[in-house]
């Protein structure tokens, strides 16, 4: 066996705290190692050339590269050795950067650790077998989860690229958060005016199938071939008949239903069409408030509906869609007001959230665009905005910045001064975060042109005094406490992951961070991919971001899908389980434990029952291998022999 070992300096990233020359030298003495050297940048083109040449020159049949994490460059080097004529699985990588040089301070200890990492890889690579990928067909349909601006952008780009798109939207209408906004920063153009056309595109595009008021129930399969069960929730209105005339919503006697679209800033009817531009523009009944459901008698809407579309008996329906890739753009949530008791959140009606205020500003909102405070429907003259209401607050488990509050507060402040010229507007802030194009100019305009008074400091308490809300806080620049007698207080409530985000992630088999935001493959270089091939991210499900960023990610995700689908066949990872039928006793343990149902029974000619692996279904977790009592089923590239070789490399010395 002729193993070649290449130790990378990675500039000073490795060479700085690891004696790479010594590592190479030690490697040369390892059994089976034919050639070892160190190189400045192994991943560079000359670096890879060096490997190819060495393979020819020294007739190497195995290669180990000791450099960064295999999660970075394994693929790069597999291609390199392949170009040099070796099977790509005759390659192993030793991670001496992330796991050694960057985390250890003592050069001797690091060097020693690196040497052992190399030894580990050498012992493993000697056990490696050539593996050959098989290829399978791709179903060129894509599922987009979430009909917010990110999801819509992704769907439209995919559809324009000629792909069949299935969009699933949780709520009765697409549009997401952006459809709720009155205006958008920093241009102050009307949100629905620029979003509307996209919504229409989605609804009218021949390649897009929309499932509104639906949720993903279950996802089976793998990249190229997913089967997705979708629950179409009962609307109690036959949407094939409903014309969206809205008569039912006028006549509905139950008038204090919670208004999801308006974030409960005012009550609504039990049967509703969320907003005038809603798509689809159909009515939905909320059974928690509908008298027909609560009291068992009413039926007003059924009586007056000209299209005879009301159906109180309607049940949820499950449909199955087959797709080859999934883009999740499942959006974000906001913390409840009552998690902010010091601001009187959830306790006083005239303390509202930023998004609620957005609805008070909006012409299609409950106040038809007149700013009226909830308690007495009077026009507030003094409005106080509190930024970071929950954000950047470790003590409630939200250490991160919510990204766009600084900007929308500036916008809402400007709009307030537009709506109510004689109003006084105060903004309590810690820092003004306005890094986007034209953003800082915008926050300056709020202060310079619109006379919004920015106060550098926090609010300690908000409490009522007569008709006023007293805002007691600090101006840290003055070093004094200050009070404002406000009529209305607007809290920039912290952005959270969308409710149900973890459950969806588990269905998608993608990972999420401690705040339930979805984790991308690489924070910089693979921002819309996940570690589950075929699943992509767009928008705030990955972390708080503003509209331009969300739209950008939508398009990026679409591009990823289009390039994935540019091939008709995909190569399957050959590192899957494989049964040695001579050893298998047909105990079925593997069949019962396989998370993917990738193992079946097979009857041999001699009548023996043995396990059989469906290669395309097997995801390569190896649970079966550690379950098998007789070592008959082995996960290729991670066989018992290969892993024990690594264990022994470390322990038997």
């Amino acid at each position, binding site marked *: 066996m002729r193993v070649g070992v290449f130790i990378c300096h990675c500039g000073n990233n490795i060479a700085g705290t690891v004696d790479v020359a010594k590592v190479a030298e030690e490697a040369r003495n390892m059994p089976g190692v034919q050639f070892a050297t160190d190189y400045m940048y192994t991943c560079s083109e000359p670096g890879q050339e060096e490997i190819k040449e060495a393979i020819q020159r020294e007739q190497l049949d195995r290669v180990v590269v000791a450099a960064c994490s295999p999660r970075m460059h394994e693929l790069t080097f597999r291609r390199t050795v392949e170009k040099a004529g070796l099977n790509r699985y005759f390659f192993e990588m030793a991670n001496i950067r992330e796991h050694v040089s960057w985390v250890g301070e003592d050069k001797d200890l690091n060097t020693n650790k690196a040497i052992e990492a190399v030894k580990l890889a050498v012992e493993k690579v000697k056990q490696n077998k050539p593996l050959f990928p098989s290829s399978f067909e791709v179903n060129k349909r894509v599922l987009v989860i979430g*009909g917010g601006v990110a999801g819509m952008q992704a769907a439209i780009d995919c559809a324009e690229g000629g792909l069949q798109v299935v969009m699933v939207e*949780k709520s009765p209408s697409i549009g*997401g958060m952006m459809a709720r906004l009155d205006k958008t920063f920093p241009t102050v153009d009307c949100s629905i005016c620029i979003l509307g056309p996209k919504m229409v595109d989605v609804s009218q595009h021949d390649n897009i199938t929309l499932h509104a008021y639906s949720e993903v129930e279950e996802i089976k399969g793998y990249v190229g071939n997913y089967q997705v069960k979708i629950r179409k929730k009962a609307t109690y209105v036959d949407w094939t008949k409903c014309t969206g005339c809205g008569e039912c919503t006028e006549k509905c006697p139950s008038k204090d239903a919670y208004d999801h679209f308006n974030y409960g800033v005012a009550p609504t009817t039990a049967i509703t069409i969320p907003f005038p531009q809603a798509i689809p523009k159909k009515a939905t009944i909320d059974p928690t408030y509908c008298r027909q459901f609560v009291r068992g008698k009413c039926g007003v809407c059924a009586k007056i509906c000209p299209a005879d579309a009301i159906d109180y008996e309607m049940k949820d329906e499950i449909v199955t869609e087959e797709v080859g890739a999934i883009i999740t753009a499942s959006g974000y949530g906001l913390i409840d007001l009552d998690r902010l*008791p010091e601001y009187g959140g959830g306790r006083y009606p005239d303390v509202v959230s930023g998004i609620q205020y957005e609805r008070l500003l909006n012409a299609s909102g409950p106040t038809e665009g007149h700013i009226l405070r909830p308690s007495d429907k009077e026009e507030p003259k003094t409005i106080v905005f509190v930024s970071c209401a929950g954000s950047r607050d470790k003590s409630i488990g939200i250490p991160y910045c919510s990204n766009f509050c600084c900007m929308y507060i500036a916008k809402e402040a400007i709009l307030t001064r537009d709506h109510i010229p004689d109003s006084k507007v105060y903004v309590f802030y810690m820092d003004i975060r306005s890094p986007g194009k034209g953003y800082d100019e915008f926050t300056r305009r709020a202060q310079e042109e619109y006379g919004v008074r920015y106060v550098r400091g926090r609010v300690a308490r908000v*409490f009522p005094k007569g008709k006023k809300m007293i805002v007691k806080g600090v101006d840290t620049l003055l070093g004094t406490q200050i009070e404002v007698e406000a009529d209305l207080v607007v809290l920039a409530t912290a952005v959270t992951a969308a409710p149900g985000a973890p459950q969806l992630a588990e269905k998608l088999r993608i990972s999420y961070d401690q705040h339930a935001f979805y984790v991308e493959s690489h924070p910089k270089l693979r921002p819309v991919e996940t570690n589950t091939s075929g699943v992509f991210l767009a928008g705030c499900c990955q972390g708080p971001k503003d509209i331009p960023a969300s739209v950008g990610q939508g398009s990026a995700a679409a591009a990823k899908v289009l390039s994935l689908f540019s091939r008709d066949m995909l190569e399957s990872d050959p590192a899957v389980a494989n049964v040695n039928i001579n050893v298998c006793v047909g105990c079925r343990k593997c069949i019962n434990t396989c998370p993917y149902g990738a193992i079946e029974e097979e009857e041999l000619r001699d009548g023996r029952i043995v396990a059989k692996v469906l290669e395309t279904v097997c995801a390569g977790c190896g649970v079966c291998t550690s379950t098998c009592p007789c070592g008959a089923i082995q996960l290729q590239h991670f066989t018992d022999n290969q892993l024990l070789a690594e264990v022994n490399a470390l322990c038997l010395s």
Partner: protein
Amino acid sequence: MAENEYIYYPGCSLEATAIEYNMSVRLIFKALGIKLVEPDDWSCCGSTPAHSVDHVFAGALAARNLAIVEKMGASTVITPCPACLSAFKKAHLRMVDNEEFKKEVNELLEVPYECGVTAKSVLQVLLEDVGLEAIAEKVTTDFPDLKVAPYYGCIIARPPEVMQFDDPENPVAMDKILTALGVEVCDFAFKTECCGAAFGVVKKKMVNELSSKILNMVLDCGANCLSVPCQLCQQNLDLRQDQINATMHASFKLPVLYFTQIMGLAWGYSPRELGLDKHNVRADHLIRSKRSIEEKRREEEEKAKTKKGKGKKGKVKKKPKAPKTEDKKAETKQPEAKTEEA
């Protein structure tokens, strides 16, 4: 320790200036058939002054009493005084978290403390162990004139990590009890603002200003008296009310009652038994008119018949469901308010 028995640490001032707090607490527990046993030969908890000297020293003064309780075979000690409670809880937590600290404290003690005692406030056990039902059952009398501002003082729920009881920003324990008694509780915004009692003697001006803010807010929220669980607050706001009026040119006449006294009244005990005569600002005018709860029920049914559906004004409590429509929305909102369309 027997079921119906608590180790009860009154604290120094409940033997003197806050004797009526002591009287009313003991009366309440007697009525509940619960025996209160004082720790043998208990000593002062050390309070704030000890903290300004050294934490080990302060810890020892508090822990001595906890050790006594431990020795009596009890796992819980209850005290009416938030300052003592805070001293106990802090000493206990520090000793649990930090072996070194525990060692140092025990070096100062004759009997070492092994961290086996939980300190609770009288308020907490009345709410959690006795329970609102039991409290409501005993109510015999209703005082229609009482409009109470529930004032908790600064430390009974703060900091939450230490006190581990109720909401630090908007505590509701006392609100719940008073409501269970049928007393009208006002939406009081300064529940936890500090009254400055700690500096009562030394920094009069400071204390008077802080206190007057609180008393002003009591009037603003439409209440005519305060209910407190803390004798420092009580003495400060009651005893010094004339000082406050003098220095702040105000004319407050707001009785400051211990919540246990209000319980006693609602349970039919006489003001004298509860030591209401010991207050500086008397509450007589507020408790003069009273009626049996039977009458109350009847009268309210009458009212209900005449004009129904008219929401009652400002009750505080957030959960359990508040009568205020706004609050109700806040209630129903919780599940959805988060729900962002996919």
